């Protein structure tokens, strides 16, 4: 019998080695294709996630809920202490609330005076967090809204308070949010009140560092950090967090969003700002072939001066 087995081994060993080689080549091929044509494979990845993760949702929700309940039970032990803390905070909050109400009224009055219109394009879609990246090396979450809800790559995502990240990867039913803490995340921001422009560069820590600050002396711990809208990535003015200094004296951003519990996120539906593509149409020099004939009855355009009028250079 054993001899029989050995002949089997001899017969099958080359086959097995061939199978191994084919498998390795196949996997290496997938890796290479991903490296060469990343967007297509990433779309495929998103499609796979779109199929797999929602089908696990029925189990994921109860398991997550019960684990969280267990965590909550542990915190009951510190209930009295927590209660006292909360009371103290509530007192402080009442004072802040009063201040906020006054400011709100003042703000409303000022807006009214200026006849100001807030950007009507900023509407939002809310989604629930279904899963996280599953790896300690990547910081991202999966939302249960996708292309069928009109989600588009690159839109900003916030929790109730602050910026959380941006959409990167949209499936039909799901979309992935790259968090600000991910090593691939770069977001242009403004530090207020000094107005310094900077970038938040994710580095897999809870408080990402501020980089490319124009003048570090003007940035102090406690300054507000808001998105700057540079490069058209995000709408401007979304709260990101507060500046804090770490032990090495490096400026970091303590994020305003509650990263401990990301449950519901809102995706800001932002339209790209109108781009000005050419410079010549706005302030054009006089056309060399003479004034343009104006259509009958139309108002004289500001750009092309009508016949007989002095050229713009002459008007001072």
């Amino acid at each position, binding site marked *: 019998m054993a001899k029989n087995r050995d002949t089997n081994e001899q017969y099958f060993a080359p086959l097995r080695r061939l199978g191994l080689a084919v498998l390795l080549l196949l996997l290496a091929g997938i890796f290479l294709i991903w*490296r060469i044509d990343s967007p297509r494979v990433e779309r495929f990845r998103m499609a796979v996630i779109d199929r797999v993760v929602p089908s696990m949702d029925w189990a994921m929700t109860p398991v997550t809920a019960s684990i969280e309940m267990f965590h909550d039970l542990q915190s009951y032990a510190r209930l009295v202490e927590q209660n006292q803390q909360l009371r103290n905070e509530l007192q402080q909050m009442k004072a802040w609330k009063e201040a906020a109400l006054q400011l709100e009224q003042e703000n409303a009055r000022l807006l009214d005076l200026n006849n100001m219109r807030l950007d009507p394009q900023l509407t939002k879609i809310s989604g629930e967090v279904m899963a996280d990246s*599953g790896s300690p090396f990547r910081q991202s979450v999966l939302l249960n809204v996708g292309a069928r809800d009109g989600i588009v790559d690159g839109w900003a995502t916030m929790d109730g308070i602050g910026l959380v990240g941006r959409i990167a990867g949209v499936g039909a039913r799901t979309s992935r949010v790259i968090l600000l803490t991910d090593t691939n995340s770069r977001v242009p921001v403004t530090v207020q009140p000094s107005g310094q422009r900077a970038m938040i560069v994710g580095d897999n820590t809870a408080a990402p560092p501020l980089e490319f600050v124009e003048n570090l002396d003007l940035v102090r711990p406690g300054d507000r950090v808001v998105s700057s809208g540079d490069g058209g990535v995000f709408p401007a003015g979304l709260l990101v967090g507060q500046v804090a200094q770490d032990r090495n004296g490096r400026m970091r951003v303590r994020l305003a969003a509650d990263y401990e519990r990301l449950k519901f996120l809102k995706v800001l539906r932002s339209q790209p700002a109108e781009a000005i593509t050419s410079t010549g149409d706005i302030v054009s020099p006089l056309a060399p072939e003479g004034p343009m004939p104006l259509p009958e009855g139309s108002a004289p355009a500001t750009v092309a001066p009508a016949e007989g009028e002095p050229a713009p250079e002459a008007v001072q």
Partner: protein
Amino acid sequence: MSDGAAHRRWMLQIAYLTLGLLVIFVQLLPLTSMPSRWAGPDMFTVLTMVWMLRRPDAVPLVLVAMLGLIADLLFQRPPGLWAAILVGLSDFLRRREEGLRDAPFPVEWGVVALAYVAGSILYRLIQTLFLLPNAPLGLTVTQMIMTIAAYPPSVLALNYLLGLRRAAPGEVDALGHKR
């Protein structure tokens, strides 16, 4: 092959598949979105290594490759890279399974640890070679340590739960085939 042995092989194969999917599922649970300073063990790799040194006949490499690829896709890793390394690791271990049958456990553990460390270094090397951003070194090192530390408890647990153990020297199956 007798019915009983074939049945058991199927059962072990299904158990591997179920446990692998379970590990992926647990890792995907959205418990906290805070980046952590240390990384947990790569349980799927541990599972595969335990199986390869105990019942390599019950898990075809195709299955390892498939689960590895799914994990790569779901965990936002470069697709196919860790799966390929895992298949290589598995083949390396399954070819040493017979020689390690009567070795003491620390020796087996050492072999597994060395193989995993080599695989991790190869992974980082290839990432660097292909100009991919590498994870912080601290995370990779803690993951290595945790994974190696998770091997003995996994061996124990699988031994109790599934009766997954190394074949004794000279052990034969129901028909007298050498295992």
